[in-house]
C-alpha cells in the first residue's frame, strides 16, 4: 500500500506541476461539445437523448485517449522504467497508481463536461437520476482507467504506441462504453435504455473486477522486456 500511495502521489504531483493532461482533456471535451452545439444551431440533436448521450461518451472515450497515450511518457523519456522495475515493490502498484490517477483526471474532465452536456443538449428541464448517473460514470471511468493503464504499459516501449494503443483499447472498451451509454440514457427520465439500472451497474462492476484482476496479475509481465 505504501508503494501504491507513493506512486499515486508522484503521478498527481507530476500533473500538478506539468499540467500536461487535465488542461488538454478539458479543452478537448469542451471544444468537442461546443462544436457540436454550434453545428446544430438551434436544432435539437436528431435521435434525442440517446444520440446526445452517445455523443457525450464518444467525446469522453477520445478524451481518455489523450491521457492514456501520455501514460508512462516520463518513465520512457527519462529512462525511469529501470528504476521502477528494479525496485522490490510489487509492479502491479505502478499499474494501480496510474489507473487511479487516470480515473481522477477523467472525473475532473467530466465535472466540466456534464454541466455543458445538460446545458447544450437537455434544455427541457429534465433532471437525471443523479445516483444512477454517478454510479454509471464512476464504474465506467474506472474500467476505462484500469484497461487503459494495462494497455499503456503493454505498448509503452513500442515505437508505434500512439497508433497501437487506440487500436487495442477501443475494441476492449466497446462493451463498457455501450453499457455506460445505456445507463446514462436510463438516468434521464422518461427515457429508458432498455437496461435495468441494477443489470447495467452489475455489468460495469463485473467488467471492472475482471480488468482489476487482469491488471494486478499481468502488469508485471506486460512491462517486462
Amino acid at each position, binding site marked *: 500500500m*505504501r*508503494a501504491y*500511495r*507513493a*506512486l499515486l*502521489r*508522484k503521478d498527481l*504531483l*507530476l500533473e500538478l*506541476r*506539468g499540467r500536461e493532461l487535465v488542461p488538454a482533456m478539458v479543452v478537448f471535451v469542451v471544444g468537442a461539445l461546443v462544436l457540436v452545439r454550434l453545428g446544430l444551431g438551434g436544432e435539437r440533436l436528431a435521435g434525442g437523448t440517446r444520440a446526445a448521450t452517445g455523443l457525450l461518451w464518444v467525446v469522453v472515450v477520445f478524451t481518455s485517449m489523450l491521457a492514456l497515450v501520455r501514460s508512462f511518457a*516520463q518513465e520512457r523519456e*527519462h*529512462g*525511469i*522504467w*529501470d*528504476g*521502477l*522495475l*528494479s*525496485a*522490490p*515493490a510489487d509492479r502491479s502498484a505502478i499499474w494501480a497508481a496510474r489507473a487511479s490517477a487516470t480515473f481522477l483526471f477523467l472525473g475532473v474532465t467530466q465535472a466540466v463536461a456534464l454541466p455543458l452536456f445538460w446545458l447544450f443538449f437537455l434544455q427541457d428541464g429534465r433532471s437525471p437520476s443523479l445516483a444512477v448517473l454517478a454510479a454509471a460514470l464512476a464504474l465506467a471511468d474506472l474500467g476505462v482507467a484500469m484497461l487503459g493503464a494495462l494497455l499503456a504499459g503493454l505498448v509503452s516501449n513500442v515505437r508505434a504506441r500512439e497508433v497501437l494503443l487506440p487500436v487495442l483499447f477501443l475494441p476492449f472498451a466497446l462493451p463498457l462504453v455501450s453499457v455506460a451509454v445505456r445507463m446514462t440514457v436510463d438516468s434521464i427520465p422518461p427515457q429508458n435504455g432498455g437496461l435495468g439500472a441494477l443489470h447495467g451497474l452489475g455489468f460495469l462492476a463485473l467488467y471492472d473486477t475482471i480488468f482489476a484482476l487482469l491488471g494486478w496479475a499481468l502488469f508485471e509481465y506486460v512491462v*517486462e*522486456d
Partner: protein
Amino acid sequence: MSSPESAPAVRCDGLTRRYGERVALDAVSLTVARGERLLLTGGNGAGKTTLLRVLATVLRPHAGEVAIDGHVLPRDARKVRPAIGYVGHEPLVYPALTARENLELYAALYGVGRERIDQVLDLAGLNGRGADPAGELSRGLRQRLGLARAMLHSPSLLLLDEPTTGLDEDGRERLRGVLAAHRGAAVIATHEPDWFAGLEHGRLRLAAGRAA
C-alpha cells in the same frame, strides 16, 4: 547449486541476451564473490549496460543462467531486488520532482524509512539541494542523486553504469568513499578503469557482447 548463504554475489553462466535479431550478450560467464568489485570495460555497444540491466532484473536473460546471491533470475527476481542498488546511464529520477520527493518515492518502493533520506543526501553531498527539482540540477548533481537513490536501502550488490560521468572532483571523492565503505559486491561499467585503481578486485572486458 550452492546455498544462498555460501553462493557468490553474482554468477553468470553462458548468459545470452538479444534485442530482436541482434545479440547484445553472447554466452557471457562471470563470477563475483561477496565483497568483490568487478570492473566491466569495453567500447560503446560492447554489452556492458545490457549485462547490468539483466543483473538489475530489468531485462530477462534469453539463455544461460544468472544467479544473484544464489537466487536464479528471473525466477527469484523478487527475492534479489531488495539487495540491488542500481545506477543506470540516467539517474532514474523524475525531473519535475524535487530531489527529496524522488528519494521519498524510492524509499516507499524499497520500504525504507524517511530518516534514511537525509543520510543519503548527506552522503551524496546534496545537503541544501533536497528542495530543488531534479531537472534543475546539473548533470553531475543528478548523477549524485542517482547514487543517493541507489544507496537508500543499503544494498549488498551495487550495479553502477559509468558512475563517474559528469562528476566533479568532490563528487568523485564521494563516490570513491562510498565504494571504499561498501562491504558488499559491486559490478561497475566504466570507460575510466584507471580511476578505480585500488578499488577493484578484477576486470572483465566485453567486446561485441562476448567476454574478451
